[in-house]
């Protein structure tokens, strides 16, 4: 099955989601003094069109999950703007934000931990419906419908989460996210806890749902191949910032940022013997509480030059909406 390929964004319609300079800092305190805050997300901007999937990749600690959860205000942003269909939802009071919960939902990484172990499957999926005033009869029909939609048997309705396999649990999580007919679903590592064969089932399900319902996805994952497969556009994050963003084809076919290149070369590949081309990064991720000056990647970058420590590079468009944050790209 093929889905419509979104290669370039139509510039006339406003994007569904427009994030500008999103920041999340966590204050830290030691015994005797305030230490610098942990800059989990440090000025992230991107936009997302209706029906589009934006992949967010990076290594653990790069802030991709935090950024995604901040969009839904599961984590309160420190500053920045989040325009959803034209409204800045970052500034709304909790009360006026609540209706937006119907529009934007989330699928979590750990399908077991995100389901209340003491609730039956049908109550788990019905919870959002009850929250927004569906009565029991219509709610029941909707739940049965959703079970069918995500490929769960009707006899699963009465089961508890521990009676399901990993893949089925994630289907349950997806059914719950779909319940209120949202426009946007944030998928936070939805397949990283699943085996390859089950992972394929869930990815295909997500793609089918997008084709049928016109959903937009923010797809957070550390698996570069999965992101490549499902995303129209991809943003690569490093230490709380987007270092490169563009169409999946551009990012994977012609990566410009040294970090993206290193990341791609580190992925083990089947069939091609490309060991010689591997760029091995030195050392570990610097602390996000005390990131390097200038370009934050310079401490591990093989192309780093003195000026990288002085000036911090900005995301600049190299044409065709392929933005890179490197002085030498």
């Amino acid at each position, binding site marked *: 099955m093929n889905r419509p390929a979104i290669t370039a964004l139509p510039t006339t319609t406003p994007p569904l989601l427009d994030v500008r300079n999103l920041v999340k800092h966590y204050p830290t305190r030691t015994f005797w003094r305030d230490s610098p805050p942990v800059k989990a997300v440090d000025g992230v901007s991107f936009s997302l069109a209706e029906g589009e999937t934006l992949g967010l990749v990076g290594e653990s600690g790069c802030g991709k999950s935090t950024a995604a959860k901040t969009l839904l205000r599961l984590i309160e942003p420190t500053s920045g703007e989040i325009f959803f269909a034209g409204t800045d939802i970052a500034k709304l009071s909790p009360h006026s934000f609540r209706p937006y919960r119907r529009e934007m939902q989330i699928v979590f990484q750990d399908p077991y931990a995100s389901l209340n172990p003491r609730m039956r499957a049908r109550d788990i999926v019905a919870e959002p419906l009850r929250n927004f005033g569906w009565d029991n009869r219509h709610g029941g029909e909707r739940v049965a419908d959703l079970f069918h939609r995500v490929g769960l048997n009707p006899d699963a309705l009465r089961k508890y989460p521990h009676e399901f396999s990993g893949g089925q649990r994630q289907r349950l999580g997806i059914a719950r996210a779909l319940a209120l007919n949202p426009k946007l679903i944030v998928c936070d590592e939805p397949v990283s806890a699943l085996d390859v064969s089950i992972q394929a089932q869930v990815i295909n399900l997500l793609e089918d749902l997008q084709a049928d319902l016109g959903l937009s996805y923010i797809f957070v994952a550390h698996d570069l191949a999965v992101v490549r497969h499902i995303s129209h556009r991809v943003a690569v994050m490093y230490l709380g910032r987007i270092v490169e963003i563009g169409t999946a084809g551009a990012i994977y076919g012609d990566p410009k940022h040294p970090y993206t290149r290193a990341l791609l070369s580190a992925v083990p590949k089947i069939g091609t013997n490309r060991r010689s081309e591997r760029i*091995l990064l030195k050392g570990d991720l610097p602390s996000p509480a005390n990131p390097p000056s200038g370009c934050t990647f310079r401490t591990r970058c093989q192309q780093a030059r003195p000026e990288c420590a002085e000036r911090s590079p900005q995301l600049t468009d190299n044409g065709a909406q392929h933005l890179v944050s490197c002085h030498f790209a």
Partner: protein
Amino acid sequence: MTTPHPDQSPVAPILAVEDLCIAFVSRDGIVRAVDGVSWQLRPAEMLGIVGESGCGKSVTAMSVLKLLPGPPAMYSSGSIRFRGEELLTASEARMRQLRGNAISMIFQDPMTSLNPVLTIGEQIAEVLILHQNLSKRAAWNRAGEMLDLVGIPDPRQRLRDYPHQFSGGMRQRAMISLALACNPAVLIADEPTTALDVTIQAQIMELLARLRREMGTAIVLITHDLGVVAECCDRVVVMYAGNKVEEADVSALFSRPCHPYTRGLLAAMPGLDVAADAGHRRLAEIPGMLPSLKQAAVGCRFAPRCAAAQERCHGTIPELAPVAREAPDHLAACFRAGEAYRGELA
């Protein structure tokens, strides 16, 4: 292919697992976690054991050092021979001599084998003093060399650090240096990079490959990641539901996978190298899920999920056999493996 024919193979295996059956016994039933699995590890070889969760790969690994707790785990048959010595009947005292000395193991979570209240140096030195009768001073010096060997900067300083002062990748290195301290003949690596990021994974796999070259350690790499296996291993064993379903040289397995399960796994993996304009490929699913291992197998365990299954697959257990006369060390447990090998299977 340049690999010698097994009959003429001059090197005896250093570790040989034969017809191993491990069951977990509980009141609710018997789970046949490993059901008649055999493989051999030759010196300085890297053998990959791949499969999805519940396929028995980790149980096999733990069983080599007899680390599975008595009940519920039960070795119901088979043998594990290390340099010809039977381990399944070996005494606990003998096993303690071997563990961490001749056969070492590293785990997915380094903190399972690192003691949080001792410094890294103390832990490495302790192993050396115990197994190699080194003096305290000599052990400490050797511990520093080990950290240097696994690429930890400032090794003499870092010996005094506690595990929590290390980052995830460094802890994994420290655990590897601990496992390799006594220069073991065999290293069993159980998902050593699963918890790590790709860039750190690349560093660790590079390190294992280098150690194998320099120290001649034979490595059993247990993983769910076919990509890692493809890049590092010499031979691969594919497991499904407690059975070995396919075994081959790494190049043969990935260029001509013969068991439908292996083929399914490869097709289910999204690739990086899809050309941007090639159109969108839908991932191949393996329908259904893992069978219950509480019933004894009556046919092929994979048959219910297999697109190529025929009637005989449900009633008869396929034997592991060479897929073709010209490929005697490419084994698969499937009636239709020959067809797959010749490319006759869709």
